[in-house]
C-alpha cells in the first residue's frame, strides 16, 4: 500500500486491493490514474518547476512518494477539460496556471518554505501585487483543480481511509462506528481534535 509521503492514519489499508470488486468502467478510470500517468504536454519547461513547487506546497507533498499532481493537472488542461464556468475578467483555467507561474517566478522555487507559505497566504487573500491577474480568484481556480486531482488518487484515499468505488457491492453496515470487513479499521478514537493544534499550512 502507498500513501502520499507515507503519511496516513490507516496502516495496512489499500483500496487498490479491492479493484476486483469494482465495475469495469470504474476500474479502468481509477487504475489509469495510478498506472498511466502521461508526460507533461501543456506546461512549458520554465513553468514546470514553479508550478510543481506550488502544488507541493499547497498539498504539503514535501517528499516522495508523491501523487503526480502537476502531471494530472497538465493532462486535464491538455485535454481542454474545463469545469463549466469562468470568473468574469479571468482567462481560461490553463492560462490562469501559466500566469500564476509567471507571477510566482523562479524565486518562488528557491525560496525557503516559510517564505513560500507567506507568498501563498497573501495570494489566497488576494493580496499579491499582480497587475496581470486577480490573485485571489487565481488561487480559487488553481486550488479547485489541484484538490480535484489529488483527492481523486487512490493513494490519497489510503491516507484518509476512504474505501473508493462501491459498485456493484454497496454497503450494508451504515451506522455510527460500523464498518464492512473490507473497510479500513477505524483509527483509535481520539478525545481531542488533532487539527485544533493549529498546524497551519
Amino acid at each position, binding site marked *: 500500500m502507498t500513501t502520499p509521503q507515507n*503519511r496516513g*492514519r490507516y496502516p495496512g489499508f489499500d483500496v487498490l486491493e479491492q479493484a476486483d470488486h*469494482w*465495475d469495469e*468502467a*470504474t476500474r479502468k*478510470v*481509477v487504475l489509469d*490514474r495510478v498506472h498511466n500517468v502521461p508526460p507533461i504536454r501543456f506546461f512549458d519547461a520554465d513553468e514546470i518547476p514553479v508550478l510543481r513547487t506550488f502544488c507541493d*506546497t*499547497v*498539498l*504539503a507533498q514535501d517528499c516522495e512518494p508523491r501523487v503526480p499532481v502537476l502531471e494530472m493537472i497538465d493532462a486535464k488542461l491538455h485535454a481542454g*477539460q*474545463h*469545469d*463549466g*464556468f*469562468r*470568473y*468574469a475578467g479571468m482567462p481560461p483555467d490553463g492560462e490562469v496556471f501559466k500566469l500564476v507561474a509567471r507571477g510566482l517566478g523562479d524565486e518562488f522555487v528557491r525560496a525557503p518554505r516559510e517564505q513560500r*507559505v507567506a507568498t501563498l497566504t497573501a495570494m*489566497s487573500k488576494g493580496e499579491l501585487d499582480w497587475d496581470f491577474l486577480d490573485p485571489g480568484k487565481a488561487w480559487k481556480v488553481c486550488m*479547485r483543480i489541484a*484538490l*480535484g*486531482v489529488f*483527492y*481523486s488518487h487512490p493513494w*490519497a*484515499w489510503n491516507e*484518509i*481511509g*476512504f*474505501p473508493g*468505488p*462501491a*459498485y*456493484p*457491492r*454497496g*454497503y450494508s453496515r*451504515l*451506522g*455510527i*462506528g*460500523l*464498518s464492512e470487513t473490507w*473497510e*479500513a479499521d*477505524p483509527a483509535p*478514537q481520539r*478525545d*481531542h*481534535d488533532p*487539527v*485544533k493544534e493549529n*498546524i*497551519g*499550512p
Partner: protein
Amino acid sequence: MKVRGRDPVDNDSRWLLDQHSRAIPGLKSMRTYADADEVDLVIVGCGAGGGTLAQRLARQGWRIVVLEAGPFWDPDTDWVSDEAGSHDLYWTEDRIIGGEDPVELGKNNSGRGVGGSMVHYAGYAPRFHPSDFMTQTLDGVGADWPYRYEELKPHYERVEAELPVSGQDWPWGDPHSYPHSPHPLGGGADRAWEGALKAGVEMRVGPVAITNGQFGHRPHCIYRGFCLQACKVHAKGSPLITHVPDALAHGVEIRSLCMAVRVEVDESTGAATGVTFFDRDGRERFQRAAAVAVAGYSIETPRLLLHSTSARFPNGLGNGFDQVGRYVMVQGASQVAARFPETMDVFKAPPPEISSEQFYETDESRGFRRGFSIQTVGPLPIDWANHVLADGHWGHALREYMRDYRHWSVLGTLCELLPLPENRVTLADGVTDRHGMPVARFDYTQCDNDRANIAYGKETLRRIWEAADAQDTLTIDRYAHLIGGARMGFNPEESVCDSDHRVWDTPNVFVADGAAMPTQGSANPALTIMAAASRLAERLAAKRVRSAAPGRIRPGRVAR
C-alpha cells in the same frame, strides 16, 4: 387524473427497463423523424422539464422530437463510481460568472445529457409549500405565481409515484405521505438527528427519489453513496429511467448531442416554425415543428431565447420588455460540518437522508422574510477537500483535516434567496462556443434579506452540532440549484411567459423547465419542475392553452 394506490398511472417506464443491463432498451427501436417533417412539438433539453413533457404528450399521440445537447447515457459503460471520473455528467463548456457573489456553475448545478441535472442531483424531492406560490401577497417579497399550489398538487402526487419518493409522513407545508418507506440512516445522519432533537429542531427522513424496495425492474438502493455521480444502480430516479423509456415506447425521438442555437419564427405571424441546431457531426440543421418547448434550465433557456433574434423579435423571444434572463435564483446552501470521536462515514448511504422544513416560512422575529431548510449532505473526498479549503486550510492543515475525513458529519441549509431583476443571464461579450454562439454570462449579487437568511441558517446548524457535542466545526458558503430566468407571470412587462408557460407575443413557444418558476422556496426544485411540466402537458393535451397572440394556436394540437 387520480393516483390509484401508489403505482404510477400512464407511465410504464419502470417495466420497460432491462433487469440485467442499465442501458435504456427502447433506444434501439426509437422512432425517427425527418427534419422536414413538421412534428407536433420540438423540445429543447431532456431533463426534468423536457423529459416529463415528452412522456406525457407522447401518451396523447403527439409526434415529438427532443433535442438534447449531451449524450444518451449508457450507465454501465458511461458512468463510474468515482468523483473525478464523473466530469462528463456536467455542463462543462465555458460560461462567465460575475456580480458581487458569483455562482459557480458546472458540477454543482448544471447537467448535460438525457436525464438532465437530475442524473447527478442528490435525490431530494420535497414539494414546495403552498406559500411559495404567493410570497408577494403573504410576505411582500418575491413574486406570486399565476397559479396556486392546488393546481400542482395532483401532479406532485403523480410524479412522486413515478420517481418514486421515499420518506416519512411529511408534516410541513401541505402535509402528505410518500409511496416508499424511509431509508435507514447512515452514521452522519444519525448523529445529526440526535443533535437536532436536543436543539429543538424537528427532522424527518427523506424525501428522496430513491427506491426502497423493488420498483418494476428497478432494484433497491445499495447505499453506495455515489448519488451525485449518477446512480449506476437505477435506484435513484431521473427522467432517463422514470420518463424516457415510456416516451420512447410512445414514439418520441430523442436526438442526443444536438445543440439548439435558435428558435426560428415566421416574421409575419410571430409563430415559431422550428429549431435550428448543430447535430453530433457538427452539421447545422433545422427541425420543423408546429410548436417549440424550451427546457434547457435557467442558464441555457434564457441563452437560447436571447439568441433567437429576428426582425420581429430583435431582442430575442419573449424579450419585448427586457425580461428574459432576469430573476435567476440560487439557494444559499452553506454547509457546516462537525467532527466526532467515532466514525460517521458520510460516504455510505445516500447523501440526502434527513431534512427539516421547520424554518421554511417567514418568522419576523428572525429579522428577514421567508426561510430555509436543513438537510444532510455526504461529501466525497474532493468535495470535502473543498469544504476544508473554504474554511481557510491548506498545506499540512488540509492534509490533517482530510485524514480525519471519516469522523465528520455535514449538514447544509437551503436558504430561499429572493428573485432580483439584476441577477440575470445575458449573452457574454466576445466569448463564443464551438458553434459560434455567444456563451451565457450569469451575474449574481445577494440582497440584505439573503445575507440575513444565510447567516441565521448557518447559526442554526452550529446550534445543532453544539447540541450533539461536536469537537470542531468547519463552514463553507456555497449555492445550490438554479431557478428562474424566463419566469411566468401576469403580463409581458414583468415576465417572459404566461401561466401556461407560453412565451408572451408568440402563439406556440413554451418554457417548460425551472426557468419558468417565479420563486424557489427552500425546496430542491426537481420535483416541482417535473410537476409543472406535467401540468403544462395536461393543459396542452386538453387544448386549454389560451392564445392571445397574433399567430394563434391552431385547433387540434397546439398548432396542428
